[in-house]
């Protein structure tokens, strides 16, 4: 009984965070601000859903751990895709003077001569 409540809480927690991530994607203003909500809330949300799935599998007698692979993959790739999207945003912002300059260097790498 206790383990059922725990599993239900983990799954609902994951769903809430996934929803908050997508809500933030819809609500926030500015491309860079919008980047924050989904890259994190969704990672934790789906991570929590996967954890709930693992616990569910163990509770119903057929232990399975391979959801850990998807979780690890998401946690490794989420920062990389976020970084690529941030670079796309910077690329489109080129020419607007709101970026702080880097110390002791010519420019940020996205703007460097290729």
């Amino acid at each position: 009984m206790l383990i059922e409540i725990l599993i239900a809480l983990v799954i609902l927690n994951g769903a809430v965070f996934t929803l908050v991530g997508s809500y933030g994607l819809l609500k926030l203003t500015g491309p860079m601000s919008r980047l924050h909500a989904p890259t994190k809330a969704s990672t934790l949300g789906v991570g929590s859903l996967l954890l709930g799935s693992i616990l569910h599998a163990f509770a119903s007698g057929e232990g399975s751990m391979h959801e850990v692979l998807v979780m690890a993959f998401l946690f490794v790739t989420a920062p990389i895709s976020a970084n690529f999207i941030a670079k796309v945003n910077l690329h489109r912002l080129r020419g607007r003077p709101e970026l702080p300059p880097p110390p002791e260097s010519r420019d940020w790498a996205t703007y460097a001569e290729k």
Partner: protein
Amino acid sequence: MIDLSLYVALGMVGLAQLMAMVRLVIGPDTGDRILALDTMVINAIGLIILGGAIWGTQIYFESAMIFAMLGFVSTVAIARFVLRGDIIE
């Protein structure tokens, strides 16, 4: 009780998927559209995992894994195309 929470979670992640789809349609910038697509892939992984738990089968895991890999690669490919106008250099 677990079944109920699974169905509620399915509804909530579905709603999240709809919100991301709205952002995909209204844009306004290329970066927003790529981000919306990336979010939709992550939400779809959540939906697939929930479906696997509801119907009690392990087969859905493989599709979740493939979704995770393809989603990452396609996000990077689109972003790279916008940045460089070329995917493979």
